[in-house]
């Protein structure tokens, strides 16, 4: 087995042994139960209203809103999970000295970085499958509603969490866990507010505000991935009328997705470079 996969397996096993997976599983299930109860209550309320008065179209708009609201929360949880997993991993092992017996083996330090990234990427993938799958299943089972382009949408949410996890790993290669956490959440906040500035700029036809949003997306493209995901999964009507708070008037382009891909690869290469060159 190559060193990358040995480290990836170790990372995965660590998350299991240190009850990170169990905690995420229990809290995730709690979230899904609450969401399902909420959806059930709203669905019941809507169903008791005269069915003629509430057309199928407007019911679907409501389901789409609730579906995107659920995924919005899942996206945030995935981002938080990616950040928390990433910030302590290298920094923690460097400060404790655990890394010393690992990197003195006949492996490349870059293998440690890639292995950890693969391990956390797998964990995030499974987490998202559980959470997004739970939302999709809950909505479908209760209302037979399925949003469009769900695979692309969930894929983009996954990508968003990978961006944050990769940045967390990058910061962790140079900073302490606490400082890395501060930087990552600071950048996430920047991305979040940049996305809203771009949205509002688009509505108010302010090209400067739109440009500010684009620049923040270039600094950290995570929020742009969510906005693109929401755009993919929003109902055609709310997309047309721009009537959902999760809809978007300034849609991140396909080029932005490509940029985000390059961004992740570049951040990972930079992490490998920093970790390879730094004193341990």
């Amino acid at each position, binding site marked *: 087995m190559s*060193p990358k996969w040995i480290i990836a397996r170790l990372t995965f096993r660590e998350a299991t042994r240190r009850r990170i997976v169990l905690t995420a599983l229990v809290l995730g299930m709690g979230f899904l139960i609450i969401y399902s109860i909420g959806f059930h209550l709203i669905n019941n309320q809507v169903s008791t209203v005269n069915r003629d008065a509430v057309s199928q179209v407007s019911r679907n708009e409501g389901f789409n809103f609730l579906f995107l609201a659920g995924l919005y929360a899942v996206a945030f949880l995935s981002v938080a999970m990616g950040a928390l997993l990433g910030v302590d991993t290298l920094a923690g092992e460097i400060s404790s*000295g*655990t890394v010393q*017996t690992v*990197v003195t083996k*006949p492996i*490349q330090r870059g293998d440690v970085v890639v292995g950890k990234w693969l391990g956390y990427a797998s964990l995030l993938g499974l987490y998202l499958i559980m959470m997004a799958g739970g939302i999709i299943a809950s909505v479908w089972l209760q209302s037979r509603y399925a949003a469009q382009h769900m695979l692309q949408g969930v894929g983009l949410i996954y990508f968003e969490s990978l961006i944050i996890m990769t940045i967390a790993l990058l910061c962790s290669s140079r900073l302490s866990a606490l400082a890395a956490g501060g930087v990552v959440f600071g950048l996430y906040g920047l991305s979040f507010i940049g996305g809203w500035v771009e949205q509002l700029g688009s509505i108010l036809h302010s090209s400067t505000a739109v440009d500010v949003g684009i620049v923040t997306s270039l600094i950290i493209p995570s929020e742009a991935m969510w906005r693109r995901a929401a755009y993919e999964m929003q109902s055609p009507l709310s997309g047309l009328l721009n009537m959902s708070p999760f809809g978007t008037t300034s849609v991140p382009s396909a080029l932005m997705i490509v940029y985000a891909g390059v961004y992740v690869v570049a951040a990972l290469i930079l992490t490998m470079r920093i970790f390879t060159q730094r004193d*341990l």
Partner: protein
Amino acid sequence: MPDSHALSTKELRKVFGDTVAVKGLTLQVEPGEVFGFLGPNGAGKTTSIKMLLGLIAPTSGTATLLGSPLGDRQARAHIGFLPEHFRFHDWLSANEFLTLHGQLYGMEASRLARRIPELLDMVGLLQFQKKQLRTYSKGMLQRIGLAQSLLNDPSLVFLDEPTSGLDPVGRRLVRDIIHELRRKGTGVFLNSHLLSEIEVTCDRVAFIKHGEVIRVLELKKLEDIKASVTIRAVGLTADILTGLCQWGQDVRADGDHLSMAVPNEAVLPEINRYLVSQGVEVFAMTPQRLSLEEIFIQVVGTDSEL
């Protein structure tokens, strides 16, 4: 031409900002040799070991490890390392921990299956192999760390304070392991503060101060090096005491008792002959060899000199 030394450094230097941690380390360790690395706190020992293992990059200087430049992956496959602060993935069991490190060495599963019980037995942890390391005592962690450093049957193993967490039984175990390693021809680079331990295990020692090797000593020749002698004699005069200075220094007399430092024990018969020829009645002559600790103090100085 490939370097035949197990380890060779030339003017290896490390500077952290304004602080010179290692000024210029120059030393050679031969294959199969047990080499002690001595120095006061802050002398740059751990920094030197970290440079040799590729954990930190030297600011300048050159070095080879098993004939290859520092950081060479192929050479690292034949190196073992027990770090000073033995922190490991403590959520793993001892068995899993050794399997992980064996895999990182690229060892085959069949070889690991043989080697792991062998090592666990050697360090006395066979019955605790399924326990997570977080339940281990400090001494047990050091033992499992030692087992980890020997997984690959290394050609050269770096032991950084290998007995700091061990009780006397554990220390004896480490001593026995080092003797066994020497018997098998495995080189050992031993950094320890326990000079008595160094004295009984090492072939040679290097004294390091301010990041420089200030003396290398072959311990087999310890008996030939500087010793002191106390003499009980009657009839000592100032002239006789002055005459004794030709064989040593630091001559001190207190009544019938005389003490002096001599370069080696071989000069004692000559001193005796001289005293008798001067009419001195010699009742006792007691040579006292310097311990490694005394040599250490002489070579690196006391704390006030650091």
